């Protein structure tokens, strides 16, 4: 029998998405992205000259990400400052975004991406990547494509998209599997793959397919938000 999702969603149904552009006026680009109760904001600074100089790469620019939870974004207060978890997520976020950006156009420069989670209900890294991808586009940085990201789950034997914290803790049958993916919106190229749980190798491919389909819905929302931001910009001037 199929697993019933606690919030009544269909297996391929995402939580309500909110996407907003320009949430940090000081930044060169910024965005907010929310999946239901998970809210992420991202700000992009750069491209700008990278210091110290010995870290510069004369053949291409450097993209640096910093991801963290705000201390009050979870029930048990998160001690401020980087943890091993946040350092790992910062790095995988970086790798998820780099393939989309034409870094070779910015030698000796750095693009800094700052991602913070205001409210966490699973899928924080993926919401952060979606926000960051929009913020990079908002900053006018040349990109091959937008990056879309979400967590696909397997609850017992059923593949579902965009799992919540409650679903992550599911324990019946084969338990819960959490597979975070990111892909370039318009091709079958994956830039983030991270999972834990129990999933048969064949089902891994099915989960990837379900994730890719859901990513196209995220892409539409991201595109709409960016277009609206550009249109309002036009009417101001």
């Amino acid at each position, binding site marked *: 029998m199929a697993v019933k999702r606690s919030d009544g969603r269909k297996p391929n149904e995402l939580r309500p998405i909110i996407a907003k552009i320009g949430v940090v006026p000081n930044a060169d680009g910024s965005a907010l992205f929310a999946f239901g109760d998970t809210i992420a904001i991202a700000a992009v600074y750069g491209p700008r000259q990278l210091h110290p100089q010995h870290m510069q790469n004369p053949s291409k620019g450097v*993209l640096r990400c910093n991801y963290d939870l705000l201390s009050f974004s979870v029930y048990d207060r998160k001690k401020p400052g980087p943890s*091993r978890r946040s*350092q*790992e997520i910062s*790095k*995988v976020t*970086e*790798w998820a975004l*780099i*393939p989309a950006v034409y870094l070779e156009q910015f030698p000796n420069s750095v693009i800094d991406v700052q991602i913070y989670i205001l409210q966490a209900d699973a899928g924080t890294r993926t919401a952060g990547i979606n926000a960051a991808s929009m913020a990079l586009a908002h900053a006018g940085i040349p990109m091959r494509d937008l990056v879309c990201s979400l967590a696909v789950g397997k609850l017992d034997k059923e593949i579902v998209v965009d799992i919540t914290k409650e679903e992550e803790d599911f324990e019946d049958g*084969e338990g819960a599997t959490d*597979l975070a993916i990111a892909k*370039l919106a318009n091709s*079958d*190229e*994956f*830039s*983030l*793959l*991270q*999972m*834990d*749980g*129990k*999933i*048969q*190798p*064949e089902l*891994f*491919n099915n989960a*990837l397919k379900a994730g*890719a389909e859901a990513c196209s819905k995220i892409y539409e929302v991201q595109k709409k938000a960016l277009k609206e931001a550009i249109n309002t910009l036009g009417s101001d001037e």
Partner: protein
Amino acid sequence: MEVSNITKNTLSRMFSEGKRFDSRGLLDFREIEISGDVSNKSEGSARVKIGKTEVIAGVKLSVGEPYPDSPNKGNLMVSGDLLPLASPKFESGPPGFNAIELPRLVDRAVRESGIIDLSKLLIEKEKVWNLMIDIYPINDDGNIIDASLLAAVVALKNTYLPQIDKEGNIDYEKKKEKKLPLSPETVPISFSFFKLGDSIILDPTREEEEACDVRITLGISKWNGQHMINSCQKKGGEILTREDIEKITSILPEKFDELNKKLKKYI
């Protein structure tokens, strides 16, 4: 990953022809040597050599309190360090990303496979075993993640519980009789696939590893007679196509069976 362009291009060309410097096939492992009992002060330990790569893992047990969110379960902790002993590229000081990632990957593969039922580590109410696995590479010639998980698993398999006396103190010296309760069926093994150009290889040497653009590490085990992927992490700022991933997931089960058979001799 720093390697000269000429090495990278040469390796890329060779891989596309299915060749390697040491004449292995692209998906072949180097020779694997496994031994137990590295240190008799630990509760369990193991040494794994894959070619010139060498990793040791040790298990220590102590009595502690359970975490509030799992009051009836013992605690599993995996840590480790990339000692400057093992490579001219490892430096002392605060851990870099690779030193953070290694134990986290081993932790996930072990934990999610279900090889240890943590509820069996409950001693009495509010009292549980802390199970600590520590991993140290002794010589890094590539593929230390896969070697580390092998070492961790073999060390767990020869771990004995120390005795607790009447006052509740642990006597580490008493002859150890009771083995750590582990699932007899499940053995997690990880496979790190590396991609250079369009070629995918397993078990790279340090030079090959540095030449590659992207890595994906998958932890796999058997659970109720089925192959199960337990963990996965991609590394590197390049993409993997769906074809790459489908190829990797189709190779995975047979590679697991092959290595699992070899491992059975030691555990």
